[in-house]
């Protein structure tokens, strides 16, 4: 079986700084610029990850797992959501997507969501495919609460 990369999570090291979410927004913004002019209120800059707390205020990083048996893929009726057989990433093709949001309903962990401004496509981790340095969230984490590992 081939080795794949996954963003591993040690939630005990997360202090909720949300640097990962900012890095994700910056990496996926439509315009260009630095973090200092990133418009946090612009819905098209939405983060693919989120940090949520439980009832005790403990922080939990919620990131797409690119699951071995991805429910978003089996639920997808348009062919937009696919599991790449080589790198094992769950990939999303916005052009093929029909915005039925069956994937949103079927992600057991509630990670993926419709885009806020238009509700016409899905906000989903792409492992920063266009960035040769890999996922920006991982590089932004000051506490190594998220880190990349090869998994079998």
């Amino acid at each position, binding site marked *: 079986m081939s080795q794949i990369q996954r*963003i591993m*999570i040690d939630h005990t090291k997360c202090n909720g700084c949300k640097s990962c979410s900012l890095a994700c927004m910056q990496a996926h913004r439509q315009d260009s610029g630095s973090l200092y002019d990133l418009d946090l209120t612009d819905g098209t800059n939405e983060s693919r990850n989120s940090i949520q707390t*439980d009832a005790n205020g403990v922080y939990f990083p919620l990131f797409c797992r690119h699951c071995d048996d991805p429910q978003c893929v089996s639920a*997808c*009726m348009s062919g937009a959501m696919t599991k790449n057989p080589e790198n094992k990433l769950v990939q999303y093709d916005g052009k093929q997507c*029909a915005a*039925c*949001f069956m994937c949103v309903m079927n992600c057991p*962990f509630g990670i993926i969501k419709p885009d806020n401004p238009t509700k016409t496509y899905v906000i989903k981790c792409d492992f920063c495919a266009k960035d040769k340095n890999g996922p920006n969230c991982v590089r932004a984490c000051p506490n190594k609460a998220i880190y990349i590992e090869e998994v079998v």
Partner: protein
Amino acid sequence: MKQVIIGSGAAGIAAAKTIRNINKNNDITIVSSDESIYSRCMLHKYTGHERDQTSLSFVPNDFFTTNNITWYPGESVLSIDTKNNHIQLQNKTLPYDNLLIATGSEAVIPNIGQLKTATNVYGYRHLTDAKTIREKAPNVKKILIVGAGLVGLDVAYALLKLKKPVIIVEMAPQILSLNIDSTAAAVYQKLFEQNGCTFRLNSKITNTQSNQNGEITHITLETGENIACDMVIVAAGVRPSTKLLEGSGIEYDRAIKVDPYLKTSCANVYAAGSVTGLGEIWQSAVKQGETAAKNMCNIKTQFTDTFTAKNTLNFFDLPTLSVGNINPESDDTVHIQTIPNSYKKIIIRNNIVTGIILQGNLNYSGIWQYLIKNKIDVSQLKKSLWSISFADFYGIDPDGQYKYDCPAANQK
């Protein structure tokens, strides 16, 4: 090993893909009455000129070559010979070692007036239906749709985009009665009406009137009212496609009878998708196809995910999700939150969420199906129902995949 699949919908394609992933050498053949691969759930996007035929496909263009699958498109199966293990096509006999029947369903046309025989009445199930309606739409003046369920509204949505006047006749007192409650339905009804759609709810069709060409010109309601129309689209439910089973010895009544391994009453014959009656939704068909395929490759696998009380809708860029039982019983607790552009309703019975409707805001809503399907007790969570997330059930495996850690969450 010769693996033969009848049907190229969600179940048939998922099965072929699964067999190929398990076994590089199996001889895989798909026979389909459809001439192209398309997602039924997107047919209305073809009718509404949002997509062409190519972009209706849910697999890459090179699917059959990449996966080394032989495909007979546009071929009807005339008979299945389960004694000699072969199927009969028009000009060909195909032997099989394993056969998968994934023929899906057909639109039901009620036996009222001339609905079954008139020349301007269509179901909405196949690309041929979507094509005919798209071709004829420019020349029709008034389209009547029977049924205000998901399919009826899908096709209405497409026709409204083409600026066609549409009237929908529905027996129930609300639209989408199987999917959502009357509050959420009223919002959609208004949106449809604002875009040129007329509804006749609580209405039953009792008769039709036709012209000399055998075309329906009016339908008659129980009240005696006559409604003029020059095209009728029937979206009043489906029934499993079992016609080709006649004389095969494969047991069926309404649907094909299958065991937990999706095997039929005949040796080496399996069934998957809506033809089994186990679920009329895309994901269920895919999972049935995958399960049957594993069994066809001698990997004994039971079909277990039978939860199908779930749906999402998206009309006029207003998405809605519904899971579980959406009609509360007298002992149930119902929580409702209404804020601009968002309606949420949670139904709780004995501390367990049994149903949910979310309209407008589906953010991070995937957890609800898990909680409902697995009957998770949410009463011990020291948190508002409106703010719970996977953080409240967080668990993670050594390989980094999430899992639910419910007892821990409930003890807090």
